[in-house]
C-alpha cells in the first residue's frame, strides 16, 4: 500500500489553496470585469480547483496508470462529444 500521508498540514494547505481560488473567481464577477476576460478567469479557476482536488485529495499523482486512465478517459470523451456536436447543435442553420 503506497504511503498516503493525509497529514493535517497538507489537508489545510489544500483547503487554503481552494478557498483562495474561490475568492479569485468571486472577485472577477463582483468587480464586473469584461465578459470574455471574466469567463477565461472563471474557467481557469475551476480547472485549477479540479486539478488540486484530483492531485492532493484523490491522490491521482501517486496512482498507477490504470486509475489515471479511468479518471481521464471520460473527461476526454465528453470534450470530444462537445467539439463534434458543436457544428450542428451550437451553430446550426
Amino acid at each position, binding site marked *: 500500500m503506497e504511503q498516503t500521508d493525509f497529514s493535517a498540514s497538507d489537508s489545510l494547505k489544500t483547503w487554503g489553496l481552494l478557498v483562495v481560488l474561490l475568492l479569485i473567481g468571486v472577485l472577477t464577477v463582483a468587480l464586473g470585469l469584461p465578459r470574455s476576460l471574466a469567463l477565461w478567469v472563471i474557467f481557469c479557476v475551476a480547472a485549477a480547483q479540479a486539478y488540486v482536488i484530483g492531485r492532493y485529495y484523490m491522490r491521482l499523482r501517486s496512482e498507477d496508470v*490504470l486509475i489515471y486512465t479511468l479518471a481521464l478517459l471520460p473527461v476526454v*470523451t465528453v470534450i470530444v462529444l462537445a467539439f*463534434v456536436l458543436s*457544428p*450542428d*447543435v451550437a451553430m*446550426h*442553420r
Partner: protein
Amino acid sequence: MAETTLEAAHSSEAHEKMGFWRAYLFSVDHKVIGKQYLFLGLFMGFVGVFLSYVFRWQLAWPGSSVPLWGKVTAPQYYEVVTMHGTIMVFFVAMPVLLGAFGNFLIPLMVGARDMAFPRLNMASFWTIFVGSVLLLISFFVPGGGSHAGWTNYVPLSDASKYLPGNYWGGNLWLIALAIDFASVLMGGINFLTTAIAMRAPGMTIWRMPLLVWQELVASVLFMLSVGPLIAGVVMLLCDRMVGTGFFLPEKGADPLLWQHLFWFFGHPEVYVVAMPGLGIVQEILPVFSRKPIFGYRMIVWAVIVAGILSFTVWAHHMFVSGMNPVLAEPFSVTTIAISIPFAVMLFAMIATLWRGQITFSTPMLFALGALANFILGGVTGIPLGTNASDIYLHDTYFVIAHFHNTLVPTAIIAGFGGIYYWFPKMFGRMMNETLGKIHFIFTWVGFNMVFIPLFLIGIGGGQRRIYMSSVYTYYKPLQPLHVIATIGLLIIIAGQIPFLINFFMSMFRGAKAPANPWNATTLEWATDSPPPHENFHTIPTVVRGPYDYSLPGMQQDWAPQAASVQAGAAQG
C-alpha cells in the same frame, strides 16, 4: 494456497445453511445471478417475439384479425413496434449477453471465486428486474406503452399533445430505460474490477479468453457512452412531467439534440450487443474445429480499435435528418474505418476453420449460422454508411434487415449457441442434440426467410413503420415479400418449441454432464459442472493461452489452460 482452501471450505458450509431465499432468489453467487439474467432474458425474448408476430401478421395481411390478439389498430401497431424494439435491445440482448454470460463466465474464465462486489451484482439483477416489470406494466397503463418508436425521437415523444393519451406509457418507457442503464452500469463495474484485479495466478491479460476481452470492451463502451443519454432521458422526463422545454423548438431548444445524444449512445450500444455475441462465436469455433482461434492478438487489437472508433460514427444514423450536410462526409469516412476491425474479426473467424477437424454439434451449428449471417449484416452496412446511398435507403426496410442481420446473429443465434455450449457447465446436465439441431434449422432458415425479402422491400422503397401499406401504390408489388417474411417468422416461432422442451427437460432429466464434455481448454472447464459455490476447489495456476488445440508434438489434441496438477483432479 492452503489458506485459500480452508477459507473455501468455510464458505461452502455457509452456502448449505442459506434457505431458499438466500440461495436462489437473493443469492450473491455470480452463477445464480447469471442464471437469473438468463431466465429474465429468455422470458422477455418470448414477449418480444410475440410482439413481432403481431405486427408482422398485420404487415402481411393488413386489417385481418391476428389470432391471440384481434384486429390491430394504428396506435396499437406503433405501440407493438416500439415495445418490440425496446424489449429486444435493452431487455433481451443486454441481459442475456452481458448479464447471463458475463456474470456466469467471467469469474470462471479468469479463475476468480466470485465477482468483485457480489451484493452490487445481486442489486444489478434486481434493478433490471424492476425495469422490465415497469416496461411490461406500461402495456396495461391507459393509452398503452410508448408509441414513439424505440428511438423515441422528440418532439413526438416530448409533448403529449402529439401522441394523445400516451402520457404514462411514455413516462414509464423512459423510467424503465434509465433503470436498465443503471443496472448495466452496476454490472459493468463488477465485470471490469473482477477481470482486472481478480485473475488467477498466471492468467496474464494476453491469456484471457476472447469472450472476456469482448465483455470488458463492451462494458467500457457502455459506461462511457450511456452518461449523456441518461442526461437526455432525465431532460425528456422533465419535459414530459414538469413542462420544461429542453427539446421543444418553441422554447428555443433544438430537437436534433436528442438524436445526437441517443445515437452517441446508440452506436456504441449496438457494439456492446455485438461484441459479446462475437466473443461467444470465437469461444465455440476453436473447440469444435480443434484449432486455435486465428490471430488471437490481432482480434484483441481489432476489438479495442473498434471500441474506440465506435464513438466517432454515430451521425451516420442522421445523414438525412436535417443535420448540417457538411457533417455527413466525416461520418461516412469513420463508418468505413470501423468496418475494417470488424472485417478483420470476420476473416479471422473464417480462417480459424481452415484445415480444422470440424464437428457439427449444436453449439457449432449456431456459431456457424451466426458467423454466416453476421457477414451479410456487415456487408449490407456499407450502403447505409455511405451518405449518398443512405438518402434513398434511410428509414426503409433495408435498414431493418441490416440491423437485424447484425443484432440477431450476435444476440439470438450466438446466444442460443452459448446456451447449448455452456448448459452442461450451468446445470450439470447435457442438452439433447437432435432437438438442438431441429431448433437450429427452424430458427436459421426462418430467420433468413424473414429478412432477405425485407432487403428487397427496402430497395423497392418500402419505408418502415407503415401500419397500412395499401395506402401507397408503390408498395403493391412489395406486398408478397411481406407475406413470405411473416411465414418465415412463423417457422422461427415453431422452431422455439423443441428448444423449450429441450431446455427445461434437460435441466432435470438430461444426461449427467462431465466436467469437460467438449474437451475445451478454458478455465471454466477445469472445475466440476455445475461448479461448487466457490468455483474452484483450489484456485488454478494458468500456464498457457486459452486456445491451445492440436499443439504439434502433443498426443492429446487439447491442452487445458490450468496447470496439469489441476487438470488431473478435474478429469471428473
